[in-house]
């Protein structure tokens, strides 16, 4: 798996003990959405899926400046998004999230089937926590959720 952490602090990852992580997974492929959802559920996460960037922004309440439909009651702890999506790419989605004062602290992970260093660096520089190579494996997701729940302490 090609991954590297950005230089930002690990406090983004810390959750209250006992809290179940809520992950927003964004991918235009139905198969990949189903896969990532199962992977995350098997790692004890609650999952909401979105099929494109616009829908993701809607769910996060970032489309028209209103309060998030999700974050009101069920805070999103992690956003995992595919890079290659028609319309808004994962990179563009990442940028929008990082531009938002409300959502910028939420860690964003980018997934891609292609291992392109310039693409990876671009995402990390824009503030992505990690870059993961598809297809995702159980070990990838376990590592991810471990970091999220800061069990490595």
């Amino acid at each position: 798996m090609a991954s590297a952490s950005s230089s930002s602090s690990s406090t983004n990852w810390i959750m209250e003990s006992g809290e179940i992580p809520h992950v927003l997974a964004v991918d235009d492929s139905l198969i990949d959405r189903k896969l990532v959802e199962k992977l995350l559920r098997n790692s004890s996460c609650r999952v909401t899926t979105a099929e494109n960037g616009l829908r993701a922004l809607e769910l996060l309440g970032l489309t028209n400046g209103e309060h998030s439909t999700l974050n009101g009651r069920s805070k999103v702890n992690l956003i995992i998004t595919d890079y290659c999506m028609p319309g808004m790419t994962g990179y563009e989605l990442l940028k929008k999230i990082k531009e938002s004062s409300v959502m910028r602290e939420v860690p964003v992970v980018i997934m891609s089937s292609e291992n392109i260093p310039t693409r990876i660096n671009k995402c990390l520089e824009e503030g992505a926590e990690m870059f993961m190579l598809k297809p995702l494996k159980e070990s990838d997701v376990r590592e991810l959720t471990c970091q999220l729940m800061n069990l490595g302490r």
Partner: protein
Amino acid sequence: MDGVTVQLEQQLFDYTASLFNEGFLDDQFNQLEQLQDETNPDFVVEVVTLFFDDAERLLNELTTSLGQENIDFKRLDAYVHQLKGSSSSIGAQTVHKTCISFCNFCTEKNVEGCLKSLQQVKHEYSLVKTKLETLFKMEQELLASRLSDLKVE
């Protein structure tokens, strides 16, 4: 345990092994099987069925696109990219590999190459579909045999 069940188990084991040995499936398929559990006992069949539906749709689109007078290679590439992704996600290795060379021909705008690739990917898809359907049928037979073993006085 009944002799029939033992035989079916052996046949299933051997058949599954052959699919991996012959390169039709790769480790990602194992990942799918590992994800299956009591909360989602039909996970593999569900995801593979999604793949079949998706692949058939894409193969139709590809056929139509390549039949145009002015071939839209960008659109073609987008379809192949989708098929490449979904085949990789379920571990359909032969289909995935064929898609990789298909993508290259799209980039090169090589019509001849694209036509050959389409033929090849249709062939590979048809093969792996038959094999997976056989695999699922064998699993059903084994399950039925195990159930009937339980009923024997």
